[in-house]
């Protein structure tokens, strides 16, 4: 069984698709395990799409596998991990390394600092695993950052207007809000403008000029 969930983020020439896939895995002809994979598909206008992926979760298959409940569970897992990835991407844009570290640690328990009796084998395995996720995050973050830098936001007039608001932090907020809302498609440029204008109004209402 395989269930997919896709979130699409568009920014200028870039279409970024975050695809969560929950699937059952087979061994020796028996459906034994489950796995959730997150794939980021990067498509620049006029270029061939390419992707990077990682295994977000894996485990032994629960006894209800095969039924409608399994499909619902799979859909929830696929959606959850795709959203989680978008949230991490948002934290990257907000440049909040501490929150990102804590969030990754909550999910993958790779930092043995506050754990009781962490084993070396366990710690090594968890660090190796989270490294693959960090690698995917770094690649996608860089691509989306390039897309933002190439977009209208960095045109001279717009840059002058939005720069004091911290452009990348606003992009991060848009991504996190999209992940929390559970939408399917995000026009990042439009969401950015909406949020930025709202912020500008708030600042103007306070009587403080941001220009």
């Amino acid at each position: 069984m395989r269930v997919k969930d896709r979130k699409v983020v568009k920014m200028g020439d870039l279409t970024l698709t975050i695809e969560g896939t929950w699937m059952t895995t087979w061994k020796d002809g028996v459906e034994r395990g489950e796995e959730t994979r997150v794939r980021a598909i990067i498509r620049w206008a006029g270029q061939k799409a390419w992707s990077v992926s990682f295994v977000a979760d894996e485990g032994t298959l629960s006894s209800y596998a095969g039924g409608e409940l399994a499909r619902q569970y799979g859909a929830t897992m696929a959606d959850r991990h795709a959203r989680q990835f978008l949230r991490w991407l948002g934290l990257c844009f907000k440049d909040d390394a501490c929150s990102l570290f804590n969030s990754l640690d909550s999910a993958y328990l790779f930092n043995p600092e506050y754990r009781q009796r962490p084993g070396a084998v366990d710690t090594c395995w968890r660090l190796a695993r989270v490294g693959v996720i960090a690698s995917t995050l770094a690649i996608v973050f860089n691509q989306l950052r390039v897309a933002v830098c190439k977009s209208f936001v960095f045109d001279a007039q717009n840059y002058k207007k939005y720069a004091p608001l911290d452009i990348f932090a606003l992009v991060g907020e848009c991504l996190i809000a999209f992940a929390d809302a559970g939408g399917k498609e995000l026009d990042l440029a439009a969401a950015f403008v909406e949020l930025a204008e709202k912020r500008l109004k708030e600042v103007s209402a306070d009587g403080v000029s941001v220009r």
Partner: protein
Amino acid sequence: MEYPCVEKGVKFGDLTIVVRAQWHRWPNSEPPGGTTEISVTLMRDGMDARIVKTAPFRKTDWPLRCLPHETPRYAEVEAKRAVNVFWRWIGLALIDDVWQLLIELDDAYRFRPIEEIRELTCLDFVSNLRSVGRVMDPLFVALTHLLCAVHVWCWKTNVDADVRSLCIQLGERLLEFAEQDGVRFADFTPEGR
């Protein structure tokens, strides 16, 4: 130009692990920067198949403070250091000293942001976490195979030994081995059984 490759191997029971490291200069980089790459080969007695895991160990992206003719010497020292550090980390993992391992990994890769002490940008953080993850992959494979080799040795020799003590002994010997510069190979299989 190929720079010197340094290797150190260990045998325990029917398992042989060879750790190799080599410094590669980035093409056209002036002054010379490069990457030390580490490669771990696992072999079992009587089996042709082997497992090879490779990972970038350290990037040297600051200008080397040496004259061009000294670069090979630098490359050798860097490779030697990588091999010794890697064996040290395997030793620490075997004696289950997770704290020390974590501290040394964090010193090398700086993957833990610490508020007001080590402020990392998110890009640095994910990039450093990726680097430590890459090195952990061969380390994890080497570690689990060594643990298996200890169990297999106990089972084959029919010795009623405490596996945990054996692992700690092996870990301590690996820590010493990592300090020895002149030794290229050591057999740590317990004797007299």
